[in-house]
């Protein structure tokens, strides 16, 4: 099998594992397994990989009433499945009358106990309902907060994707500057219409009261601050900047270390520099 065939099989296995393969692709995949048994193993590994995506999400607690609702629904189905249908029962009239009298007597005898039990049950039910209402209120607050975070993350991701997919997207590579950051590197993706995505790696930890600041340099203009960067403990940072579509094309990008809060014009040492070639 040549490299192209191998890649094609990997592609088929990926689509099958994600369950997005067309009928034709599934059929092709099934045939390819016959010719290349390793493809079955690869598909299994990719299924395992896809399952990891399902587990790599923040966990949320389902509301308590969901459990109750499901178990009640299943319990009703089970009872319906095992309940006698009553066929073949042909009680005689006198027997029915005796049963009615007996039931009436029992009802009278047990009524006090029954109603006492009912009151207790109602009290318990009310207490449980109050608990559920309080829990539901807390869950609503949690869900709203989670949803807000998810929406913000989704918005940023879609903005970043829009830049990366833009027809006019330009890539700018930035190199670390010796002696302060010789191993640092960064890459920016800029689209006039959709903004800029900036990603840096291996930036040194910032001293107290200092911050990294990204600058856009255009011909004949002083450097323009794009914003501040906050790398994580590994020195990595990814940021999205929306940009007005009528700005002059940048000729270079630079990252400097500046006083906390940033400055209107660069004053610190350059850590990353890259020419745009635009």
């Amino acid at each position, binding site marked *: 099998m040549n490299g192209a065939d191998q890649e094609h099989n990997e*592609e088929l296995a990926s*689509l099958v594992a994600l369950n997005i393969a067309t009928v034709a692709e599934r059929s092709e995949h099934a045939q390819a397994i016959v010719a290349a048994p390793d493809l079955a193993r690869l598909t299994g*590994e990719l299924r395992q990989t896809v399952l990891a995506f399902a587990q790599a999400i923040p966990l*949320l607690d389902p509301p308590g009433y969901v459990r109750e609702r499901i178990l009640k629904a299943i319990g009703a189905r089970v009872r319906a499945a095992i309940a006698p249908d009553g066929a073949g029962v042909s009680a005689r009239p006198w027997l029915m009358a005796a049963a009615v009298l007996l039931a009436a007597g029992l009802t009278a005898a047990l009524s006090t106990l029954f109603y006492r039990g009912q009151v207790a049950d109602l009290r318990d039910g009310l207490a449980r309902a109050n608990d559920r209402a309080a829990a539901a209120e807390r869950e609503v607050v949690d869900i709203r907060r989670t949803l807000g975070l998810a929406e913000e993350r989704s918005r940023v991701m879609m903005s970043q994707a829009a830049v990366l997919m833009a027809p006019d997207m330009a890539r700018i590579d930035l190199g670390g500057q010796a002696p302060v950051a010789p191993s640092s590197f960064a890459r920016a993706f800029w689209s006039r219409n959709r903004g800029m995505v900036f990603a840096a790696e291996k930036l040194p930890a910032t001293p107290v009261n200092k911050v990294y600041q990204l600058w856009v340099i255009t011909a004949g203009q002083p450097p323009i601050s794009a914003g501040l960067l906050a790398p994580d403990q590994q020195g990595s940072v990814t940021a999205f900047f929306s940009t007005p579509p009528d700005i002059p094309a940048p000729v270079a990008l630079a990252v400097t270390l500046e006083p906390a809060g940033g400055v209107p014009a660069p004053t610190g040492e350059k850590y990353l520099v890259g020419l745009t070639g635009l």
Partner: protein
Amino acid sequence: MMWLLWVVADLTRSARRLPHRESADPAADAEAVARLAGGDPEALADIYDRHARLVYSLAFRIVGSQDEAEEVVQDVFVQAWKQAAKFDRARGAVVAWLLMMTRSRAIDRLRANRGLPTAGEISEVPDPADPSFGPEVRTLTAEQLAKVHAAIQALPLVQRITIELAYYEGLTHLEIAERLEQPLGTVKTRIRLGLMKVRDAVLETGA
């Protein structure tokens, strides 16, 4: 003319908190499914208590609505109850089976809400007797998951987004190509490259 109109939208990476995971007990799961197949409703409670959190979280991640996520959870556990008799422990983990059903149900709802077709190859609920539900599908430990999570985060953004559109939004590769305005071949390549990288990470964990 001054044109300092840059707006900082986001300066930090997305939160990377890895959630606490319930301890996996495949043997107890399988035993519970066997009891469920025998008509014991209490078994469903056992399975629910162990996995409802993960099922609900995945459903919520996909449908983005509490009400609909709850409906998905109910659908999944009812489906599990109906199909328990066909479940074969040798073919895979219970949690993997539940997650596959969850994704299918959730994506069906999502696509229906968007007016997209739900029938056919992208919406089928996995049948535990289906040979494509293979024995290789296992759940990961918290330590393994942390490594895989890091591998996912390390993917180039275009690859990660493409895979997430497929997995969490249920878009076909054709629909992803339209959404991202990219050629179909490019989309397939990004899916392949991204999944293969994460697969390498999965294999390195020994899963």
